[in-house]
């Protein structure tokens, strides 16, 4: 059955088109999805997942049950950049160490969305508040990263610049659209949701599929940039997600978090940002090299999570929750 599951995950259209995107880069095809359209597809996915999460949240749930994973999520977002920074500083300068640490403390919405789509295929329940967890985990790592850099570089961060970073961390487009959709999904009546659902819900898997093709194209192009950066970073990009996932999986049952939610929390912990963090870091820490933190998260950690991670984490959790 286990192999079945891995195959089922591998043979889903989103994953296959992601691989197709990698292949297109490998054979140097000129296939591309226009940038503006790709941005819109990504907006759609956040809109769709937010609306649905809000909707489900609106259908009740125990506050005490919901608050636990959220606290857990914030802790992860703060602690992961701290411990990874210590590791990274051995090989990278302070600026790049801080930027990579922030990248791994934050999360990847597309990885999350792929995991949700996997859960729905496997018919496992999860809570709408997990979408809140996704939104909540995007920002803290950015702030932790910038503070770490400020501390260790000795450079006094001008108050002005720090304010800008804080602002960007909490108002960047992807955080904003998830939270907005979540709240709106929560307040609207069921018939209102259903009028939007043929767009927001029915097209979800299909749009995710084309978006993953674009992710494959991007990841393929970014991987090559890593070649010159040496094995340490590649190893980091492979091992850290598994470590973060491992710790999360062990703790979740203790906190009484359900299987579906634990799975999503695990994937959040394992994932690394390649949208919110690059946008914030380019502004906050121009001395950090986006040619390091973007390829690492997009070219290594993202594919590992969606191809290997999703089925493996799921199997381990099933074992732990059996």
């Amino acid at each position, binding site marked *: 059955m286990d192999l079945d599951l891995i195959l089922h995950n591998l043979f889903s259209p989103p994953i296959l088109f992601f691989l197709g995107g990698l292949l297109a880069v490998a054979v140097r095809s000129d296939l591309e999805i226009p940038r503006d359209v790709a941005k819109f597809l990504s907006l759609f996915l956040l809109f769709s997942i937010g609306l649905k999460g809000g909707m489900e949240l609106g259908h009740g749930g125990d506050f005490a049950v919901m608050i636990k994973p959220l606290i857990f999520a914030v802790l992860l977002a703060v602690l992961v950049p701290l411990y990874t920074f210590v590791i990274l500083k051995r090989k990278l300068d302070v600026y790049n160490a801080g930027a990579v640490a922030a990248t791994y403390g934050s999360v990847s919405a597309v990885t999350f969305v792929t995991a949700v789509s996997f859960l729905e295929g496997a018919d496992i329940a999860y809570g709408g508040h997990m979408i809140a967890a996704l939104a909540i985990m995007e920002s803290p790592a950015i702030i932790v990263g910038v503070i770490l850099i400020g501390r260790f570089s000795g450079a006094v961060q001008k108050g002005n610049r720090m304010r800008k970073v804080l602002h960007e961390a909490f108002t960047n487009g992807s955080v904003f659209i998830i939270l907005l959709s979540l709240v709106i999904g929560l307040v609207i009546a069921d018939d209102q949701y259903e009028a939007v659902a043929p767009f927001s819900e029915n097209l979800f898997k299909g749009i995710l599929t084309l978006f993953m093709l674009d992710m494959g194209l991007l990841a393929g192009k970014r991987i090559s940039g890593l070649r010159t950066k040496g094995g340490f970073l590649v190893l980091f990009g492979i091992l850290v997600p598994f470590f973060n996932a491992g710790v999360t999986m062990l703790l979740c049952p203790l906190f009484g978090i359900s299987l579906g939610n634990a799975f999503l929390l695990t994937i959040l912990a394992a994932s690394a940002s390649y949208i919110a963090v690059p946008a914030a870091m380019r*502004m906050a820490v121009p001395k950090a090299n986006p040619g390091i933190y973007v390829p690492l998260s997009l070219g290594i950690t993202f594919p590992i999570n969606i191809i290997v991670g999703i089925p493996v984490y799921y199997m381990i959790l099933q074992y732990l929750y059996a």
Partner: protein
Amino acid sequence: MENIKRVEIIVPSPELERVLDLFQEKKVEGYTLIEKVRGMGHRGIQDGLGLTDAFTNSMLIWYCKPAKFDSLREQMRDLLEECGGICAVSDAQWLMH
């Protein structure tokens, strides 16, 4: 036709706001902005890829009196030193209207 300087500034898009802030501070009266420009430089290739503008440049064209350019030259230099990009000046003539 009046003699004038043509200033061309190319910076990573995330830094554009800082240049525009500098322009505002110095009361620059007119400029033209081309977005989504790609390029290569000391900091590697800006290939325009991705969902953010982290790998995109912005290009500003600014016609001004020489003295005006001098008034913000040093701040411009500091900005470029920190964030990357280039700034070049050439002579031009401007059709008065």
